[in-house]
């Protein structure tokens, strides 16, 4: 296929010894009329090259803000961002946009949720792909067009020549998301964010897009952060999963460990409230009582305590820290983690 055309780009920087991405105590607060919204409230993790991290949470958990905060895509005004994001050892928190622009699209890229709105409606698809290429790689217009063509076929778009000349609205949702992926991988980034990349798509198309993301990620040895609310989406496609609640990571573990040995009551509740295809019809669902947390005046102690079935006074007053990783690399923040024996997730399917 087209490997040569971007070989030069993906092989530019020699890998340094530092891990690809180290996020340390990242906080992102929004200033609003009603108070400070703690959308991301102290998140830390490390991501190695070529690995996949799934970030799972419900709406309001801060997962989308986290992705954009790491990438520096949030507006500067009314946003407080602190902590540290080191990309190959380079600190990105506090970097100005002109520095970030060298990373954006080149070193790190993002696929957004809604392919309908994330492409410029009045610009041809080809232009939207070559634009980024020509910004970062010093190549001719012709060369860029050739590369775009190769990219489109590599993301599985038939008749790429014709598609290049089309506008986004002339394509189906699945095709548009493929174009978005082509744009994101164009310059051979080392880190790809996929923010709910399939939520706006139909089930059958969703599977195709997830497969595509996975093959591209492996072929190009990209690290990927897959943000989603759907535990099913991350289950078979990630190396590690972080579960977010109220702006914090409440549990983080290698994917297989998390599903077989979950410790945080929120993860447990989340898993058991999803209807399972394998359960018989009319199976009574387990629910999580209460409401999602208020991010302006979050509850004291453990943020999940007001909704937690196991909560005690200690939970309501003292906030549990994220534990150090155990031998499996499993971390969780809970005073009274779910006991292995009490697990009710044997039939997770």
């Amino acid at each position, binding site marked *: 296929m087209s490997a040569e055309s971007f070989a030069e780009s993906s092989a530019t920087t020699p890998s340094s010894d530092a891990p690809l991405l180290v996020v340390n105590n990242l906080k992102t607060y929004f200033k609003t009329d009603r108070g400070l919204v703690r959308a991301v409230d102290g998140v830390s993790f490390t991501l190695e090259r070529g690995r996949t991290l799934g970030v799972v949470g419900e709406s309001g958990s801060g997962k989308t803000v986290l992705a954009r905060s790491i*990438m520096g*895509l949030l507006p500067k*005004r009314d946003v407080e961002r602190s902590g540290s994001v080191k990309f190959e050892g380079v600190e990105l928190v506090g970097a100005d*946009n002109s520095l970030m*622009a*060298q*990373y*954006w*699209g*080149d070193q790190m*890229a*993002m696929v*957004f*949720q*809604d392919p309908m*709105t*994330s*492409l*410029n*409606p*009045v*610009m041809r698809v080809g232009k939207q792909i070559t*634009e*980024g290429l020509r*910004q*970062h790689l010093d190549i001719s217009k012709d060369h860029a067009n050739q590369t775009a063509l190769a990219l489109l076929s590599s993301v599985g778009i038939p008749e790429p020549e014709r598609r290049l000349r089309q*506008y986004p*609205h*002339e394509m189906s949702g699945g095709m548009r998301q493929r174009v*978005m992926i082509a*744009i*994101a991988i164009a310059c051979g980034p080392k880190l790809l964010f996929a923010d709910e990349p399939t939520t706006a798509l139909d089930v059958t198309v969703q599977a195709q897009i997830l497969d595509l993301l996975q093959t591209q990620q492996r072929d190009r040895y990209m690290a990927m952060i897959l943000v989603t609310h759907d535990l099913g989406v991350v289950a078979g496609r990630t190396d590690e999963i972080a579960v977010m609640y109220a702006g914090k990571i409440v549990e983080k573990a290698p994917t297989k460990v998390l599903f077989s040995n979950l410790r945080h009551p929120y993860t447990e509740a989340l898993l058991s409230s999803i209807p399972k295809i394998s359960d018989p019809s009319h199976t009574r669902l387990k629910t999580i009582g209460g409401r999602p947390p208020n991010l302006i005046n979050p509850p004291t102690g453990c943020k999940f305590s007001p909704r937690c079935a196991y909560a005690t006074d200690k939970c309501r007053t003292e906030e549990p820290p994220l534990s150090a990783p155990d031998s499996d690399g499993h971390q969780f923040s809970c005073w009274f983690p779910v006991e292995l024996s009490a697990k009710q997730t044997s039939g997770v399917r």
Partner: protein
Amino acid sequence: MLRTFTLKFLRLVLVVLVVTFITFGLTKLQPGDPVSKIIPFGTAQQKAALTQDLGLNEPVYQQYGKWLGNFLQGDFGKYYDSKQSVNTVIKTSLPVSLELMLYAQFFALLIAIPLGVTTAYRAGSKYDRGANATMFALLALPNFVVALLLAIYVGAKWQLLPTQSNVIPFPLNPLDNWTYMLMPVVALTLGQIAVYMRLLRSDMIATLQEDFITTAKAKGIPTRRILWRHALRPSSLTLLTVAGLNVGALIGGAIVVENVFGVPGLGKRITEAILAKQYPALQSYVAIIAILYVTVNFAIDILYSVLDPRIRNARSVA
């Protein structure tokens, strides 16, 4: 595409017909007999002859048909008394008004677009708030107030520029032309700047919040390019339409401004015709303005569907 074009064109024709008919009907609704107004002291015989002459004894629709027939053949009628042809008047006054409006439109957009783009980008900053507050005040400043202020100070008090002018055609003497045009153009332009700037600003702010702008940013595209290449085009589509529709306000403004400065344009001629009760002439003027207005908007409508690919191929996708 052709089908929509035809449909829109038919609509245009229909609107013009209805508009001219309503205008025509209005002249018939007026109290009193026009003949008595033209020759109040004429004999009964003279009046009857004039009635005959003007075709006033025919049914309204016939009169309208006759007028329309003449109008379509380019005969816009005559003034009652002087028998001066409306065509001659239009020939000299319409270009003046068009020049005035074109200048106003051009300068308004020239100033408003960069202002709109930069304030949208720096929305909430001191610069933005300052520009915005100024424009908000300008919106409340009727153009006759601007015109009168200019006339009082620049014209009367400081005598920097001539008021009560004769417009020198541009090809004859560009400098004179501009000297006479400057104040009318400024009076007409100020309010338009505010309208366009605020519109573009709010559209740009909305566009800048769109996902595809984040996509462009995430591609590493420089801000300048995002603003001018990615955001301006989708935002300016609304501006384009409004600029077309705004021709209506511009015409109204031109009438007022021409009167304040005595610019011999169509607006001045219209008000003269009103005061002299020159109804046939007036009717042609109104018809010409309506046609001008509807045609400009027709053209913009077409231009719009050419510029916005979503509309251009709406049918092929659906």
